[in-house]
């Protein structure tokens, strides 16, 4: 389809504004640009058709099965969008007097309280704008904590080899060095290696639990002991909280700091890649360092408070407020029981899918997975030449979004399935049948699968060309 620039015609107008009814003031020429920006010029019908066409070439949770592991593509309730669009929330300036924004402050304070309860933490900031941003913020808290104790030698952050790439990247941005620890045979943290890695320079261990393989870290108590004994802190990457919320809390597992992803666990939409929100919770000892400002409930109502020891600000204003409104609506609707039930059904759906394909799509044996599981297609690739990527692309032809591919890095030819709790059994049954057929197809017609997708918007794109000679903007011929 055309780019909006390619349907642009000089002189066409779409939205128009009222002509100012005061004297026109011209800005001094010396400040003005030589030419108007070359933005598109389209009529309203062109505009509407263009964006409708783009939306038809997008695939969201509303379009179908979306088992993108680690991303928790659960259903995004419609009521969330409606409440977030209420004028009482959207038409409010962030720098209004506190007395005039009591509703917004109550949203923030209530949500923080709910998240503290769900994670077992003592205090929560909502400010970080995404999961990675939350990691960064959490690590700054850890740095501030050690610095306040004048324990300046704690410069290292331990990260398991199965971790999300953001973990080491965030830790480096927060000024730490990284120590990688391997996984053991059960794909958990190798305790022996961990014991060797910790020391007086250990600032923290970053852990996802359930791990990125979708397995609960059984040795969590031992891990917590090893880290705390060494004087380090335990950081919880909340990417996989959806599996265990209401069942077990990071705070009770021994974690000191946690970040959440409201766009994963709490049903706020992913929006094609953002905005997300990455609140950070922590134990009492770290609370004084939380970003400014925090919201407090007092007898006279809600107010902002600023901490003397705060790490400062990590984002403008108070973070992605509109996302908080959605998350609060979600938790309000689910309540204590619903939160737990969501986790249980996320795990149920994952295990149901796993149980019905694992004879063909091999995964960790003899254990139940949590909300997701990782299969390795290495054996199929050895036998047929069909790779995890080819399976993913064949799924596209059948109208399903593929699972996460080639992550975690420690599994060869990995596919990571996370159906989430909102998926229904009928769809799962269809997907199971489809995946079983696809497996058979790999033996019958591997070449066809290697060229998949055949019925998508495009065939496989040439990524080498895109990266070698980057074309990253439209340029008029």
């Amino acid at each position: 389809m055309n780019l909006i620039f390619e349907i642009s015609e000089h002189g066409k107008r779409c939205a128009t504004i009222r002509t100012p009814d005061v004297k026109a003031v011209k800005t001094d020429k010396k400040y003005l640009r030589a030419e108007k920006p070359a933005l598109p010029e389209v009529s309203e019908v062109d505009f509407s058709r263009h964006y409708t066409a783009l939306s038809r070439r997008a695939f969201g949770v509303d379009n179908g099965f979306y088992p993108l592991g680690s991303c928790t593509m659960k259903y995004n309730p419609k009521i969330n969008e409606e409440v977030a669009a209420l004028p009482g929330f959207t038409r409010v300036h962030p720098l209004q007097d506190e007395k005039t924004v009591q509703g917004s402050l109550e949203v923030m304070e209530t949500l923080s309280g709910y998240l503290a309860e769900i994670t077992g933490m003592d205090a929560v900031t909502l400010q970080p704008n995404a999961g990675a941003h939350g990691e960064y913020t959490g690590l700054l808290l850890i740095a501030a904590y050690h610095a306040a104790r004048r324990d300046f030698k704690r410069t290292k952050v331990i990260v398991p080899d199965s971790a999300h790439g953001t973990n080491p990247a965030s830790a480096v941005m927060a000024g730490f060095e990284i120590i990688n620890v391997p996984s053991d045979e059960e794909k958990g943290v190798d305790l022996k290696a961990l014991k060797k890695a910790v020391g007086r320079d250990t600032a923290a261990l970053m852990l996802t639990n359930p791990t990125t393989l979708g397995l609960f870290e059984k040795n969590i108590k031992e891990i917590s002991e090893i880290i705390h004994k060494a004087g380090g802190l335990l950081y919880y990457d909340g990417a996989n909280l959806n599996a265990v919320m209401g069942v077990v809390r990071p705070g009770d597992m021994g974690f000191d700091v946690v970040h959440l992803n409201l766009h994963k666990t709490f049903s706020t939409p992913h929006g094609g890649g953002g905005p997300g929100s990455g609140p950070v919770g922590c134990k009492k000892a770290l609370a004084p360092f939380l970003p400014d400002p925090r919201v407090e409930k007092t007898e006279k109502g809600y107010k902002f408070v600023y901490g003397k020891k705060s790490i400062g600000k990590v984002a403008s204003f108070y973070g992605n407020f509109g996302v908080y409104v959605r998350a609060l609506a979600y938790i309000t609707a689910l309540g204590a029981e619903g939160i737990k039930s969501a986790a249980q059904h996320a795990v149920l759906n994952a295990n149901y899918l796993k149980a019905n394909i694992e004879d063909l799509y091999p995964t960790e044996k003899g254990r139940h997975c949590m909300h997701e599981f990782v299969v390795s297609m290495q054996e199929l690739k050895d036998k047929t030449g069909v790779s995890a990527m080819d399976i993913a692309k064949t799924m596209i032809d059948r109208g399903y979004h593929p699972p996460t591919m080639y992550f975690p890095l420690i599994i060869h030819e990995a596919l990571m399935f996370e159906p989430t709790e909102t998926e229904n059994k009928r769809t799962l049954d269809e997907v199971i049948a489809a995946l079983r057929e696809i497996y058979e197809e790999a033996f019958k017609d591997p070449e066809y699968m290697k060229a998949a997708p055949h019925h998508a918007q495009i065939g496989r794109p040439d990524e080498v060309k895109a990266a070698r000679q980057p074309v990253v903007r439209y340029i008029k011929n």
Partner: protein
Amino acid sequence: MSDYLSATERETKEMLDSIGVKSLDELFEDVPADLKLKKLNLPAGKSQQETMEIMTALSQKNKVYDIILRGAGSYDHYIPSMVKNLSSRSEFITAYTPYQAEMSQGILQAIFEYQSMICDLTGMDVSNASVYNGANAAAEAMLMCCEKNRKTLVTFQNIRPDTLKVLKTYARRRGITVKVLPVPGGAVDLKALKCELGEETASVYIEQPNYFGLIENAEEIGKAAHEAGAKFVMGCNPIALAILKSPAECGADIAVGDAQPLGLPMAFGGPYVGYMACTNKEMRKLPGRIVGETCDHDGNRAYVLTLQAREQHIRREKAFSNICSNQAYCALVASMYMSAMGPDGMGEVAEACVSYAHYLADGLKGAGLKLKYHGDFFHEFVTESDIPADKILKALDKAGILGGLKLSKNEILWCATETLSKAAIDKAVDVVRRVK
């Protein structure tokens, strides 16, 4: 309770049977029993109707003003109907990062178009797919510019306070020094700047217009930065860029800013979207997602996430930045706004802002306030007066008007946009005139 699950009891039972377990609890056997939670201390779940009522009641505890004379980083602009309508299509809202290009061409093309528009607006060669917000864009730019032996950022007291705070947070743990120069006249003092630049200066960051609304002589500042071997980073209001010299024309190496004014509501501070664009030379250091054009094996035009080897999921601890998401949805809204308004519409909005702001400034002068600074301004300006700011703002609030932002006991930062009218401004001025 509404829990959005779709399994009936019968289906749940069938699924448990198929897995070979008796209960949901059995699936959590790996969780140590003594760690398991008895019950969350949260209210009981609510019906959809109750949820709507609760959330609506909360929203009504906020005060919504009809007339808004406050900016300072969040701006009230007219949002075209087609932007609100088309952006609310659920395919856009419920999609994820377009990892699977074959089924995500719509999202990818939308981002490519956004990148192109940001390049048009800023004059830069490359834009990323957006970052969290304007303050974070400035912080990421600061990190981009740092080299082994150049680790100082020079900036000024006339940038947004939030931006400065975020810059300081990001600098602290990376051994970066943030030098903040005073601005007695409101705008950048070129002579003072030149004295501060040195071999350790990695970058100079200014905002255009600056926090006080003044238009900076950006070209001169850029020249000074480059003479010292430093990079020049400009944080610009995107509405102002419809008429002001582009960062490229001013010699900027990196252009950043908050694109909230482009169709996003004030929404108590977010979600907004930071834009980030740079010259070709800096492209490989640019953080965040970037969409590129290529073709598929049949030669059809195709869009993909590209230059991914820069990013954290590949470079891990060696990545320049930990950013992985963008604000795709907000970027989509911003690009819809730019195409709905077009170059002429954007220009008209910018000019309306300028005209109303000057009309407001004149009115307030007539009401006894003084302009604190004397330079040319865009749509914001600072007044001072003997009457306490609080008194003025309180009187306006009573009249249903959100006055400017109090900067100090006697100083107020005002803003005017195209949402105002002569009548609205006259009303506000009249209120101010009566304050004694």
